[in-house]
């Protein structure tokens, strides 16, 4: 069976409408970026799901390692002073 090792994987992002960010919707294989865009249009926007498509070679995405989750994200958990509710303001003070 002929394989398609030359067809890289693309991750597909769609902007639902102007004013919103592109959002990851899935992936597909394509010979190149143009074909990825054509196929993404047929596969992921059959019902008016978007106004813009990004096709990103999956190999180009750098991702954090899930096993580093604790060391990366836990330090933010004890920094309550980064949130507005940490600060006491008398109830009489308005618009703050």
């Amino acid at each position, binding site marked *: *069976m*002929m*394989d*398609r090792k030359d067809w890289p994987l693309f991750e597909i992002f769609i902007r639902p409408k102007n004013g919103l960010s592109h959002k990851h919707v899935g992936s597909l*294989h394509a*010979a190149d970026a143009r*074909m990825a865009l054509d196929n993404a249009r047929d596969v992921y926007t059959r019902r008016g799901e978007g106004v813009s498509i990004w096709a990103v070679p999956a190999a180009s995405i750098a991702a954090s390692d899930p*096993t580093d989750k604790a060391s990366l994200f836990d330090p933010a958990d004890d920094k309550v002073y980064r949130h507005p509710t940490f600060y006491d303001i008398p109830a009489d003070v308005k618009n703050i």
Partner: protein
Amino acid sequence: MYTQGLDAKTEQGAQPSPRLVTEQEAALQGRFQERVDAEEKIEPRDWMPDGYRRTLVRQISQHAHSEIVGMLPEGNWITRAPTLRRKVALLAKVQDEGGHGLYLYSAAETLGVSRDELIGQLLSGKAKYSSIFNYPTPTWADIGAIGWLVDGAAIMNQVPLCRCSYGPYARAMVRICREESFHQRQGYELMLALAQGTAEQKRMAQDALNRWWWPSLMMFGPSDEQSAHSSQNMAWKIKRFSNDELRQRFVDATVPQAEFLGLTIPDPELRLNAETGHYEFGAIDWTEFNEILKGNGPCNRERIEARRKAWDDGAWVREAAVAHAAKRRQRALKKAG
């Protein structure tokens, strides 16, 4: 369901062979189960037990194969649809199924298998797909019955899969369910047109119901006592309801719809239990089901041959696409240089 082959007890390699589990692995497994129990989703690069990964690859790929093979019985009628309205609906439905196959293959690939491996398993006959697609579609009424009953049964099974513990599968199922609701409605509308048509049309509708009723019930897979993997898959939250529960829901939802059509469900034992509020139905012929899973259904050979032919006939397109992409890259380089 679309993955009913998973439940067959005779199938090999479904369960990991028992072996010693290291202390570290036991700890990882414990943490994994805690996350699943807390309804946390598992994502591709998270640690997961081998059995979980293996089960998902098999289930998602069987589901994908079912979508792709499922295009064939209906594709048979695209050129012969009686009106343009029916034709565009059927074309859109079959196109959706191709898309659903792709979402699912993509979800399976996140678990570390390649698309070509999966397609190879389908074409070699190693992989299973839903038994339902091995029945023929001799009349136009079959297209109505497939939409109403087969897609109806599929939706019954797929809605809970939207809450599956594996993130990419759950997300694919959300898209699929959103798109699939029109499939069932167009099928029922088609049946309604026939049921309210001439005597001959009504006879066609009844004939299609007669042929598709029992195979639709079989789509939910073996009964709970016969099902090999239910409990582990429930614990992993891959599966949320048992085969029998979902089958019962389907019967309860569908019988009144058949009554509205003025058609008769081909089951003399079917009756409403006033106490439970559920319909009781006759025994399912599992011999037929098992024969189809083994490859001896009316259309098994035809379906796989059609897929092989499509793959072989498309070889030059795949090669040309690679060559064309290479040429475009060269041109772009020359322009830049």
